[in-house]
């Protein structure tokens, strides 16, 4: 399996990355080089093996923790927006999306 330039364009779009043509080609060859070593992983028989997400779940049950549904954070809007690229009256500004 090797990624084509078309695959790279599709993935870059999904990842919301604009790649220059030279960058795109370099990345294609590097990623294909990497997937050569991934092939040994695909050959492993994992029938009946449960995927491991939280590593400590390998030895004990790790339950997803839930907290009470109550307000716990004060209003920090001003501080949180202090380094935002563009704000106006407490709102984040983006280019117009609805004509």
């Amino acid at each position: 399996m090797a990624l084509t330039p078309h695959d790279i364009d599709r993935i870059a779009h999904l990842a919301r990355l604009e790649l220059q043509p030279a960058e795109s080609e370099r990345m294609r060859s590097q990623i294909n080089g990497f997937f050569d070593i991934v092939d040994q992983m695909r050959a492993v028989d994992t029938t009946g093996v449960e995927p491991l997400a939280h590593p400590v779940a390998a030895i004990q049950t790790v339950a997803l923790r839930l907290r009470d549904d109550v307000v716990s954070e004060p209003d920090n809007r001003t501080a949180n927006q202090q380094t935002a690229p563009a704000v106006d009256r407490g709102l984040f500004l983006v280019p117009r999306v609805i004509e």
Partner: protein
Amino acid sequence: MSTTPALHNLTVAELAAQLRQKQVSAVEAARHFLARGAAHAPLGAYLATDEAVTLAQAAQADARLAAGDTAPLLGVPMAHKDIFVTKDFPTTAGSKMLAGYRSPFDATVVSRLAQAGVVTLGKLNCDEFAMGSSNENSAFGPAQNPWDTSRVPGGSSGGSAVAVAARLAPAVTGTDTGGSIRQPASFCGITGIKPTYGRASRYGMVAFASSLDQAGPMARTAEDCALLLSALCGPDPDRDSTSLDVPAEDYSRHLNDSLEGLRIGVPQEFFGPGLSADVRAAVDAALKEYEKLGARLVSISLPRTELSIPVYYIIAPAEASSNLSRFDGVKFGHRASQYTDLLDMYKKSRAEGFGDEVKRRIMVGTYVLSHGYYDAYYLQAQKIRRMIADDFQQAFKDCDVIAGPVAPTVAWKLGGHGSDPLADYLADVFTLPASLAGLPGMSVPAGFGEGGMPVGLQLIGNYFGESRLLNMAHRLQQATDWHQRAPEGI
């Protein structure tokens, strides 16, 4: 004060004692280390310092000392890897994406250490978003290895390791996702420990791969690492959903325990043809020291060691691609100056803000999570991850701890791996297995190899076995003086 010139040669334990006994003030200590940092600026260890902030914190520590406060690290200056957010210093994560960013809050690790009395010297260089093994992926240029400034310090906590090795800070924080504390500690001849996954809060650590990222201390001695680990670990149930509900420990308690009868597992896969002869010689000599201390070496097998490379380099980029989707030029971080619409703004902001390696990992991660490939790559990797964790449990039936090299070679030359990312990935082979399994691991100075460069011995414990690792490292440091050596000119 007559002790000032030698302040930077004191350990954290010694410096904390001098501060408590008022032999030196926190302000004097802070000034001393700030001056050293400035004098050694070409090493590239620091990304940000702020004398006024540091001295204000130090003055506060002196006031607490005068009032009889007995916090364990009161007045001890430390610096943080620039992956921890701090409200008093900028945070970049080594990325142009976050140039100029200022967090409205402190990471839990930062605030826990501040509570213990630590004074912050500044923020330390690292690979961009902690992705790298050489610090060369920092958008602000690599830090240099003080043992040979033409070599890499290792990564991603490269600036952290440089600061300790060059005596610019008595101790620092680092983070380890696939070896980012252990490998730079090994390359720079210092001591570092990554605790069990879930021991230290990830709140306020700029996320790279959330199921792997873990914070830990780096210092010159195991005794210091124990002090720091005791302060920075502990449950953070309201802030980090993966933080374990396991109480903090006093990791100094077992430092002097006997190693008589301890079974040290030596994985045969860590000593194959990929291991360079100089590293092997140093590691073998360290293992002999342990035999002299009463431990017994047991041959074990970690059969999926090499598989750790593709498994890690699927899982970590997958999680990274998801975590880094937050950098879209809207709420914080870089926004492109020219764009046609919202989509174009996202794509240009991200293209301009991220460096090569980060883009590569986002691409790999996006691909392996995309429709039709998820099962074959991401899920398959998570299944092998469990097999790797099970291999460790099998091995721990025959041994109490595992020891081997941290990395196949000593630090390589800056630019030595060229533009081949695979060369960096392959060099991570000995640190990735413990990362995937979430086990505690540490690097302890074990001598020198090619070019007079430091070699680290890796110790891997079972879950929650940090005390045993620190005990082992401490006993080795009582028997050897590798950890006391300093680079020339430091």
